[in-house]
């Protein structure tokens, strides 16, 4: 197997170049998917027979929850890559993912609470799914705080990578909490093996929103990583040239 692509990914300059080419495409996909998903989901999709219109909050809640978990898994993978291959770009990706993931977890908890009041009768219940999700939010806070608190870049990278890798144990707990224990939160409406527990007119816009959120995450992550790379590599000649090109004046 040829590993050159993997090692090339570790080069900040190469990454900066290639991500710059992908960004416009990803931004276009994000705008298209999220707009289509929002209009379809909030205006066109039929109301639910029990919950009426309040079920529409799932078009934000479900993608945000998916993302909150996926981002953590991707951070754990970056952590492993950073620890094993000592790739600096993995640390950049890990650090820059954490705030996005924290926001997604927050949005998921907030929309869940707003939906919970009319549907369940309570904003918050200490059930296994909700509590595990709250722990995920705190894990994100932990990674952010750890990254900021240690001034030595290499030590901070190692500490954050270990926390990200260890914290990934929480993800299967979130996923299976609704099956292992009695919870107020309903089980998953979507599985890879069975057909969704709702008609296509409801799940197609949801699928668009989920894909749109993934594109959105990629866009924000790439933008944040590019900025961080320019900051970290500010002494190299290619970054100086790039900054001069972007600002149009010499330093």
């Amino acid at each position: 197997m040829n590993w050159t692509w993997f090692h090339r990914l570790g080069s900040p300059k190469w990454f900066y170049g290639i991500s710059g080419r992908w960004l416009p495409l990803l931004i276009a996909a994000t705008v298209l998917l999220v707009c289509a998903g929002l209009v379809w989901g909030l205006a066109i999709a039929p109301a639910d027979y029990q919950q009426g219109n309040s079920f529409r909050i799932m078009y934000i809640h479900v993608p945000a929850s998916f993302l909150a978990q996926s981002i953590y898994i991707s951070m754990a993978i970056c952590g492993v890559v950073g620890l094993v291959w000592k790739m600096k770009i993995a640390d950049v990706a890990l650090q820059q993912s954490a705030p996005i993931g924290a926001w997604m977890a927050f949005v998921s908890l907030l929309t869940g609470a707003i939906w919970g009041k009319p549907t369940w009768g309570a904003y918050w219940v200490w059930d296994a799914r909700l509590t595990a999700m709250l722990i995920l939010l705190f894990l994100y806070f932990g990674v952010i705080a750890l990254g900021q608190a240690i001034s030595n870049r290499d030590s901070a990278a190692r500490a954050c990578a270990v926390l990200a890798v260890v914290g990934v144990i929480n993800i299967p707990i979130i996923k299976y909490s609704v099956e292992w224990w009695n919870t107020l939160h309903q089980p998953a409406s979507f599985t890879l093996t069975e057909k969704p527990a709702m008609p296509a007119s409801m799940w197609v816009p949801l699928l668009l929103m989920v894909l749109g959120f993934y594109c959105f995450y990629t866009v924000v992550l790439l933008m944040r990583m590019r900025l961080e790379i320019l900051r970290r590599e500010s002494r190299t000649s290619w970054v100086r040239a790039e900054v001069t090109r972007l600002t149009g004046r010499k330093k």
Partner: protein
Amino acid sequence: MNPVRKKRLIIILAILSGMAATVGLAVFALSENINLFYTPTEIAAGKVPADARIRAGGLVKEGSVQRNEDALTVRFVVTDGDADVTIEYRGILPDLFREGQGIVALGRLNAQGVLVSDEVLAKHDENYMPPEVSDALEKTGMLKHYEATQESKK
């Protein structure tokens, strides 16, 4: 992969599996406490601590809801198919409360084995459908059948 990296990868995997085992055991030990509610079968079997506030969860039995004429008190039976528990509640029920709906009630068991509850939460299932579909199912009498099959699938 060079030996140094291989070693580091093995160490990480070892730490991760150790942590997973620890958390797994902790979660297993706590599993009684992590359950949000007791099922009527568990209550009937006496697995419930006496004189403690507990949550009971199950489906509201068909035809069991009795409303008091001049107060907000409601009595209904919650079942899981094997056992029943009677619940007495004073207050406003959530919108989704109806016969056949899954609910969770918080309260204390009294001497007669009735759960005197001060909070009732409706549990929503994972199924969504447009009102026209549910109306059509209702007309043909298939809605109950549909919900029963969804319930038995779990």
